[in-house]
């Protein structure tokens, strides 16, 4: 109230006699006047029950956001949000109290001068603390995809996928906050970290292009693997799950292709099938947007599945989540979803939750051990939260 009356412009007093007149000192037993302003803060390290829901907002793509959600809380699940517009990418640091958004703004919102930038947010206050301008208007814009923004070298380097449609990867020293390099990856896409200073990209010729860097982000070596998948017959989904440095890429028709990303030179591993012959008869297939996720502690993989799959059903989402032992490829459980699912994410929790973006564009929270649905978090909190990140 202090602030308020202090700022009360005289010119408007005719209009505001009420507050001036009727405010009396508060007597006992009444609720007291409350301070203004008050703004909430978050902890510098987020609990493992929190997730980042990246809402690209199809219905206003220039105005997307990332919502921070506590999936375990009985109420007040919505903790805060960050702007992330125009097909932005998002990544959270596990080493620094920082969040990164690679986005694009225009001087006249939908037109005019384009500026690509990486904005660095402070985890406690969710306020921007710095930004790095990304040159050339090259930032790749896709329906949200985690592998467009990735760390290397223990989170010292931050890599951004560019697409103009010339494909390249921008290398930023995020500790120094300066740009080191922009590396062409012709005919390939995305950033899949391998080892300390190397990353792979999937290519149109069914290979993985491996780019090895030195400390300064310069290319030490760039080479393609042998072809190891079949984009024409059975494409790999481009969003793998990771367990102990092994990447698990599902294929449209239901194979899992493993790639060992622990070394600078990834090793193409064996593959295995998600469904049994009887299920293949029914055309059970993986599908949705973020269709595979992992619980690293227990070595379990979770895959979103739908029946009656066909050419073109790979984004359809699913009614069940199938659970696998990543090492043996043995299916150990099935979770039947309460609501049709589009994307799934396991939390980094001892007793983890499975968070599902459902067909209503709300989040359903399941307790993994029991497979029991816990709660739905929505109420127009999101428009299109297609990508979920477990919090660091």
């Amino acid at each position, binding site marked *: 109230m202090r602030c308020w009356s202090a700022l009360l412009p005289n010119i408007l007093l005719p209009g505001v006699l009420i507050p001036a007149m009727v405010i009396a000192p508060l007597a006992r037993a009444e609720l007291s006047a409350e301070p203004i302003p008050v703004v909430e803060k978050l902890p510098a390290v987020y609990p493992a029950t929190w997730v980042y829901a990246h809402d690209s907002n199809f219905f206003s793509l220039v105005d997307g956001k990332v919502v921070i959600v506590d999936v375990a809380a009985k109420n007040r699940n919505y903790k*805060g949000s960050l702007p992330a517009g125009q097909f932005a990418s998002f990544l959270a640091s596990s080493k620094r109290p920082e969040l990164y958004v690679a986005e694009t703004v225009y001087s006249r919102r939908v037109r005019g001068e384009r500026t690509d930038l990486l904005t660095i947010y402070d985890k406690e206050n969710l306020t921007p603390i710095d930004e790095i301008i990304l040159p050339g208007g090259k930032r790749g814009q896709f329906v949200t995809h985690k592998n467009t923004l990735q760390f290397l070298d223990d989170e010292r380097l931050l890599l951004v996928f560019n697409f103009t449609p010339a494909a390249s990867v921008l290398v930023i020293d995020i500790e120094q906050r300066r740009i080191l390099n922009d590396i062409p990856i012709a005919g390939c896409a995305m950033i899949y970290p391998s080892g300390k200073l190397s990353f792979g990209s999937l290519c149109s010729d069914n290979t993985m292009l491996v780019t090895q860097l030195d400390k300064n982000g310069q290319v030490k070596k760039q080479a393609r693997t042998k072809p190891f998948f079949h984009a024409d017959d059975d494409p790999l989904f481009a969003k793998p799950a990771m367990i102990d440095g092994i990447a698990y890429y599902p294929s449209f028709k239901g194979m899992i292709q493993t790639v060992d990303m622990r070394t600078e030179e990834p090793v193409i591993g064996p593959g295995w099938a998600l469904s049994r012959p009887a299920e293949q008869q029914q055309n059970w297939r993986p599908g949705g947007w973020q269709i595979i996720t992992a619980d690293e502690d227990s070595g379990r993989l979770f895959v979103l599945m739908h029946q009656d799959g066909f050419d073109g059903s790979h984004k359809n989402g699913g009614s069940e989540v199938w659970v696998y032992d990543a090492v043996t490829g043995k299916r150990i459980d099935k979770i039947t979803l309460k609501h049709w699912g589009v994307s799934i994410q396991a939390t980094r929790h001892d007793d983890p939750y499975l968070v599902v973006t459902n067909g209503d564009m709300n989040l359903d929270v399941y307790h993994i051990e029991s497979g029991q649905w816990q709660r739905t978090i929505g109420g127009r909190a999101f428009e299109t939260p297609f990508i979920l990140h477990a919090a660091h």
Partner: protein
Amino acid sequence: MQWLDRLVVITARHVARKTSRRSFLTGLGSLLVGGAAVPLLPVARAADGGGGSGYPGVAPQTSGQAGDPGDPASCDYWRYCAIDGFLCSCCGGSHRSCPPGTEMSPMTWIGTCTNPADGKDYIISYNDCCAKTSCSRCLCNNNEGDIPPYRAFSNNDTNWCLGTASSVYHCSTAIIIGIATEAS
């Protein structure tokens, strides 16, 4: 779509009579769950677990303060008698605080709401939280004592993100700044 339309009309009329404070929200029913003003229907409230906030996917809260009854995540919470916007209680703030990373407007418009606990009329300052895009959660519009912009500080159609670094509106709070005397 006829059944859906009918539902909206029925709902609208129903609420206009029964829970009139909410009928503009009824008009905005589609903005709450889309297509139908479901959360305003008693049946929906029941379906939604009874004592729900009225917003599907939003869990009820308490103010955590003795003598301050009701659910700050519900449009029916007593302090919201003249609020217009998204409830900060649903957006990472509370009925009296802004979500992280937003800025609370130093000035705003005020309303007078009756606290059912003590029957007293409190002066409520509806400070907006600014500098992030529309929260979009828990849209609530009540207009007791609202007067058009020629009575600026009694108007809730104004973007009160004024005197802030950014005028972008995110959500609204309902803060006690005093108590109304008989004079009011």
